């Protein structure tokens, strides 16, 4: 059993980490801006990046399903193993649910997503103002949960490295030799 994730898994993890931080920061920043051409531009960029993240997570899940990740350290308690597995499952679930909720919201708001301004993504719902606002609230709530999970994910990685002194963090290190 390898002690490292594959280079592809690492690449996808860190690429998505950068992309998702950007998406979260942009998402929380742009929502309270007064309506302006810049705001419309930022929304378009956010949606293009969101579609990209959605496609990447599908690739990532396919890779994960066909490539076994490194085993957890032997000393980990059953409870901690359960926490690890359910935490990762929840992260994947939200990486699917959040772009879907954004897509549904855009459809209900009557604002079709056109990927990079070129490829139209079909609307999943008819225009409906109330539903659009409900879905906006859903999108926001899911993201708040996602932020809490990411904080937990990073805290757990740091705990393994600095307190437990195991090599969990190194499994995902971009440098394979270390």
């Amino acid at each position, binding site marked *: 059993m390898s002690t490292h994730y594959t280079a592809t898994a690492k690449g996808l993890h860190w690429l998505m980490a950068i992309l998702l931080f950007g998406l979260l920061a942009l998402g929380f920043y742009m929502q309270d801006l007064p*309506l302006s*051409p810049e705001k*419309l531009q930022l929304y378009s960029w956010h949606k293009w990046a969101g579609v990209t993240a959605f496609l990447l997570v599908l690739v990532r899940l396919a890779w994960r399903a066909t490539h076994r990740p490194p085993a957890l350290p032997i000393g980990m308690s059953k409870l901690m193993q359960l926490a690890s597995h359910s935490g990762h499952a929840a992260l994947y679930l939200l990486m699917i649910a959040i772009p879907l909720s954004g897509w549904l919201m855009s459809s209900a*708001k009557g*604002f079709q997503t*056109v990927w990079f*301004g070129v490829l139209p993504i079909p609307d999943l719902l008819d225009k409906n103002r109330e539903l659009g606002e409900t879905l906006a609230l859903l999108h926001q709530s899911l993201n708040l949960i996602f932020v809490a999970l990411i904080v937990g994910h990073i805290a757990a990685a740091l705990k393994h490295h600095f307190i437990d002194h195991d090599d969990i963090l190194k499994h995902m290190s971009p440098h394979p030799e270390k």
Partner: protein
Amino acid sequence: MKRITLASIAALTLAAGLPLSAQAVEYSQVNAAKSAINFTYQQMGVKMDGNFRKFSSQLSFDPARPTEAKASFDVDLASIDAGSSEADQEVAGKAWFNTKAFPTARFVAGSVKPLGGNRYEVAGKLTIKGRSQDIVVPATFSAQGNSGVFDGSFTIRRGDFAIGEGSWAKFDIVANDILVKFRITASSK
């Protein structure tokens, strides 16, 4: 001889597109519930649409005498549905329609030209935000029971009417071309 005359009259009548019953029908009572003014435009490659909920009109149209038709429309610009309450408020503001100073858009038809069949070309003056443009509007007319339905569309450039000034004046985010589509249903008196 008699047979030929009858045939000629029938042919002439058909060629002129006149109703065989000689009675003229004038469509003048606009049914607001069955009429609509919609618009579509591009926003960063995304097709957006909206509509105006309120407008008033004065109309008289007799299919037998289309060139004598009269039509004018006053669209309540504050009645816009631009997709969200945020957008509705924004377009009512000074940079867009400035509805406090210019509450209505007005179209007055000057002439109606029959193009054959049920197609017509309406030339007239469109005034929005204190700026007037001569426009030509292609329209079709079809009688449906007691009512007549006018359908048509035309494109305006928002820049011609200073719709979207200041930071909105560039067309990279919100395109210049706005396609206006209408359906007016009117009944005869």
